[in-house]
């Protein structure tokens, strides 16, 4: 395990705390401590989304929001995926929290645009 200058678990918990305020329903978490990786699965407004959090280096993290149409509609043909990620977010909690919230809300905007405009 890479030596980090921050508490990775606390950052993951902060993401969970924030999503609970957004009425997102927690489904499960896959955690790999060896590679310092957490994948959170949530239902947000009837949509299944994944949030991957991983260390970028000893002082920063990457967060990635993913929507897979095939997971939501069991449709594998012409299947869209939307991703928004921010790499190398400073681990300092005040920065991390701010970017995490902003990036989540931007991802939701992308998702809404997709639902409104991308007619299959």
């Amino acid at each position, binding site marked *: 395990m890479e030596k980090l200058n921050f508490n990775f678990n606390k950052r993951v918990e902060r993401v969970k705390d924030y999503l609970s305020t957004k009425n997102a329903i927690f489904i499960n978490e896959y955690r790999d401590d060896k590679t310092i990786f957490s994948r959170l699965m949530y239902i947000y407004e009837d949509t299944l989304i994944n949030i991957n959090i991983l260390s970028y280096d000893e002082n*920063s993290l990457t967060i990635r929001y993913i929507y897979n149409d*095939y997971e939501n509609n069991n449709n*594998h*043909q*012409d*299947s*869209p*995926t*939307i*991703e*928004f*990620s*921010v*790499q*190398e*977010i*400073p681990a300092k909690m005040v*920065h991390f929290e*701010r*970017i995490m919230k*902003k*990036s989540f*809300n*931007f991802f939701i*905007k*992308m998702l809404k*645009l*997709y639902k409104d*405009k*991308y007619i299959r």
Partner: protein
Amino acid sequence: MALKYDFKEKVKELKEFLQMRGINITEEINNIEVVEGYDNCSCHLTCEYKNKIIEIMLTNCSNDTLSIFYNYWHSSNNNNFRMSPVVSFSIMDLSSEKVMFGYIINKSFYTFIEMLNIYLKNYKEIEDGEVKFQF
């Protein structure tokens, strides 16, 4: 397994679509090979859209379908290698049939551009080294 369609022809159709919309292709990297009996094809296009660099990658998915990936890397556009956002949109398993391929390319490209426009509209630069992200 050999592809049931001509991958180069699909690349040509994609490039024609982009060029007809005034999108400048600045770099093209093609990779066509056979790995363990399976065709493995990809085309990576670096494009300029309204002075923004976007990356488009076309690959084979199955022997009769393709996948397309659109990416905008903030770091490629602003030389900011700290905290780089990436906007991505992709379609997996899209039909190689010409009409359906063209239809999905058109629809997916404009969906990606709209996502990108929302991002660009909301993003603000970092000032004096201080974190000032605005989405």
